[in-house]
């Protein structure tokens, strides 16, 4: 027993049981996540002060629109629609044989492809939210990949929600298909991460 603990027993007027109950209660109090905006504020200040090297902008510039469309178009040409399998964003690495949660494949001929992709994307968001929070043991490679995927999804969302960007239905479909593909990768990665933590 440390000197502090001896002192406490003699001076502070709590029994050992009371002390244990208090500590257990305090340690069990819930933690709170800061709002997302806090990181953006930190990043802006850090960039302004030159504390961090300039990261790739999360807000896509105009080239991204063309580049993204071209990349997504290439994807559609090379891989048949409906059979888009993630080529692996680090997901085939040894020890990463986790089976992701089942993803409901949407195939309804009467519903157009764009709507089906939107529904599938929402389902993947639900799957992602159902996973446990991020583990405390952080692996640099995995975390960097997760951030990269989230960045790319955010960039697509930005394009899809930008009222100044006029897209045809076909172009929207390309973006939504790419979003679904990235979401699948993200779900797989987070699922594997959660499994590693569990065992």
């Amino acid at each position, binding site marked *: 027993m*440390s000197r502090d603990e001896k002192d406490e027993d003699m001076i502070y007027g709590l029994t050992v049981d*009371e002390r244990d109950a208090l500590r257990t209660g305090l340690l069990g109090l819930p*933690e709170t996540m800061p709002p997302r905006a806090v990181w953006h504020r930190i990043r802006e200040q850090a960039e302004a002060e030159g504390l961090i090297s300039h990261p790739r902008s999360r807000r896509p510039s105009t080239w991204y629109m063309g580049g993204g469309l071209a990349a997504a178009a290439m994807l559609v040409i090379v891989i048949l629609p409906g059979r888009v399998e993630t080529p692996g964003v680090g997901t085939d690495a040894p020890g990463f044989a986790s089976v992701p949660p089942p993803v409901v494949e949407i195939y309804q001929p009467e519903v157009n492809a764009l709507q089906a992709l939107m529904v599938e994307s929402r389902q993947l968001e639900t799957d992602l939210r159902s996973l446990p929070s991020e583990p405390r043991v952080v692996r640099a490679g995995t975390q960097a990949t997760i951030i990269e995927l989230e960045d790319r999804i955010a960039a697509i969302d930005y394009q899809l929600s930008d009222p100044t960007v006029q897209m045809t239905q076909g172009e929207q479909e390309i973006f939504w298909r790419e979003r679904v593909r990235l979401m699948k990768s993200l779900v797989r990665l987070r699922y594997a991460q959660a499994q590693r933590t569990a065992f």
Partner: protein
Amino acid sequence: MRDMSKFADIQIDKAIIKRAARGDARAHEILYRAFATPVYSLCLRFTRVPANAEDLVQETFIEIMRSIGNFRGEAAVGSWIRRIAVTKSLMFLRSAWTARSQTLAEGFDDMTAGDNLSHGISRHPDDAMDLDAALANLPDVSRTVVWLHDVEGYTHKEIAAFMGKTESFSKSQLSRAYQRLKPMLAVTQESLGADGAAAQGY
């Protein structure tokens, strides 16, 4: 120091620390994601005001960015980050006390004693927030000392150094806090005992 803190559970690859020391934005984002919740929780616990806690999180991580080049890895990175967060939070509290022209010693007694008397400590066992509320009702300094000692595992000597006070000061704060929390602990224990008996089929 008994390290029961949630900071101690978080492990970070040395490679990330090295990248962060070079100013790599991604590495800093990884550090932020790993530690933002415990840092914010600690700051919120000390200040009780979300906006102040957010500012302190910002100050803490900016300080990390400024100083990580000097981090030698002799202590765990979590301990180092926690120390920065604690220092920033105490500086904030001290500045608040200073702004009210009160010394550290009198601040905790006079500033919130009225709050405690008016709100009291919840004794209702069904109140899910009882400990949280009781803790929040403690004067700032008492609450801070309880947290630093019982959760973060700092010794009285370390707490005294943080606060620029004596060990006796830290001990007396803890003692006063315990006296205020004691009635609630009795209720909690009764409640736990009843739950335990019920669980065992008695």
